[in-house]
């Protein structure tokens, strides 16, 4: 006897009439099949919390892993034959083995920070670190200038009228188009790269900050007036906290655009940096190295975006 039928038998030993309910003298007959369904078999979910957690993690990670495996298989099948234009995954692993396994070549960590050797053979992580260094400086400058300009344009109508048309036109200029001008101004490669990052990242930060200021709930203005907050208090205690979500949206977009810009800029100029690495490996017909670099660039950009988002959540909570 199965578990379910045992349950049914317990309430209806004769097995003829189904269970019935007495409601104010009225006998309601349920069909036997409904009663049968009322007693479901016990759930086969694991009851142990660790097992449940494991199931959750697997359920989240497994589809991505399967998709990845599927794509790699397709890629291998498409490019695995001789004379293929792109190296297959296995070819990449063979040819760029050194690049993949020794990313930190030429990188030293000591008390004064991370050092990447200028000349000679540098591992891929060293190139990434070099690029990140430039991004950080340019992005930091763009963040500060962007938030300040955004606040100005958002609060002051005349500043908006004066500056917004300029911003709308300049922001459509692609980063590489700024390169000749930047080189002409700064002459040196390093400051011109930083300027390039600055001029690329600043536009989304300005525009999102301005939008944040303009979208402050007008009720907060009334609260500030009733509480008689002076302009400084109003700015620091109401405007700034209210704009945090918009500011960080702008900062996230800005960091993504900075990363795009630096790779493009480094391809054009020489030296160290992941963009230079790509261009160099392409010129040396080492496409497998380029593909490895692509993966590293994507993962680094993803990490940058998530870091900024996490900082934003932290700031919003305080």
């Amino acid at each position, binding site marked *: 006897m199965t578990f379910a039928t045992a349950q049914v038998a317990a309430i209806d030993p004769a097995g003829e009439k189904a269970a019935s309910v007495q409601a104010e003298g009225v006998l309601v007959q349920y069909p036997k099949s409904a009663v049968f369904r009322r007693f479901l078999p016990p759930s086969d979910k694991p009851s142990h919390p660790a097992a449940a957690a494991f199931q959750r993690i697997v359920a989240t990670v497994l589809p991505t892993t399967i998709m990845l495996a599927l794509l790699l298989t397709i890629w291998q099948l498409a490019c695995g034959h001789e004379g293929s234009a792109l190296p297959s995954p296995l070819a990449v692993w063979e040819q760029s083995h050194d690049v993949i396994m020794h990313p930190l070549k030429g990188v030293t960590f000591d008390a004064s920070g991370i050092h990447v050797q200028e000349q000679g053979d540098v591992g891929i992580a060293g190139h990434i670190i070099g690029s990140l260094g430039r991004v950080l400086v340019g992005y930091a400058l763009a963040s500060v200038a962007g938030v300040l300009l955004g606040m100005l344009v958002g609060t002051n109508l005349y500043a908006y009228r004066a500056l917004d048309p300029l911003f709308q036109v300049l922001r459509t200029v692609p980063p590489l188009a700024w390169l000749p001008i930047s080189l002409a101004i700064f002459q040196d490669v390093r400051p011109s790269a930083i300027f390039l990052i600055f001029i690329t990242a600043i536009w989304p930060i300005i525009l999102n900050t301005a939008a944040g200021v303009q979208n402050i*709930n007008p*009720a*907060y203005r*009334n*609260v500030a*007036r*009733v*509480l*008689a*907050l002076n302009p400084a208090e109003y700015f620091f*205690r*109401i405007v700034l*906290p*209210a704009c*945090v979500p918009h500011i960080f949206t702008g900062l996230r977009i800005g960091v993504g655009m900075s990363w795009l810009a630096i790779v493009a800029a480094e391809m054009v100029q020489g030296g160290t940096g992941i963009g230079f690495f790509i261009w160099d490996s392409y010129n040396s017909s080492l496409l497998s190295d380029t593909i490895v670099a692509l993966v590293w660039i994507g993962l680094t950009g993803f990490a940058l975006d998530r870091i900024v988002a996490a900082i934003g959540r932290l700031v*919003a909570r305080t």
Partner: protein
Amino acid sequence: MKHRSYLALEGLTVEFPTKAGMFCALDHIDLSIEKGQFVALIGHSGCGKSTLLNAVAGLVKPTRGVIFLDGDVVEQPGPDRAVVFQDHSLLPWLTVEENVALAVSKTSKGKTKAERSDWAMHVLELVQMTHAAAKRPGEISGGMKQRVGIARAIAMNPRVLLMDEPFGALDALTRAALQDVVMDLQAKLQNTVLMITHDVDEAVLLADRVVMMSNGPAARIGKDRPIDIARPRNRLGVIDIPDYGAARADVIRFLHEFHRNPTLAA
């Protein structure tokens, strides 16, 4: 010299510039409110009740006429005319206690940090919100948010407490609970209160006077009915008091008159 009441509106006229010319919201309002009085302001939607309250708060400048509070002319908004907004307007990035503390910090000059935080918690206790002091507005219900809004207003020790349809966005049960809170506060603190409401029962239950406004534009004070029911008032007990029914009937008849004939001038 004519005795001027604690809060005196004299010939208050408020006009707003629009594309089609000047729009008159209030037309020569004369209102006298004594210290410690609880006045309910009632009228149809759009009749200018909020404009009147905002003028008393100093958020709107009168076009003509003056508002006197204890002899001083009302010009700028300030914490001495605390406002409880219809949508509570709590700052969502601050906790409940921090929201009240912000108001306390602006009105407690010369008090120590300990005294200020004691006062903030005392005021939260008056509205029964001490258990949620560390929560953010996003984590509490509408009724609780409005309690905090009321706490923030009374924390400023205002000369006049202005309430703009404070319970309009709440369900009936929460409204009843908060009306009791307000009655308790009134008994303890004896504030001068001007409350806008749509609810006739609420107006007659809570107020010493119900001021009825005519329809906008160019609204005026229509009728001013005193409510002489003894305090403390009990929601169920007042039903048996004849003046309660009579007052309710008066207000409803007034509002109905203006609903039937919106162009009727007072």
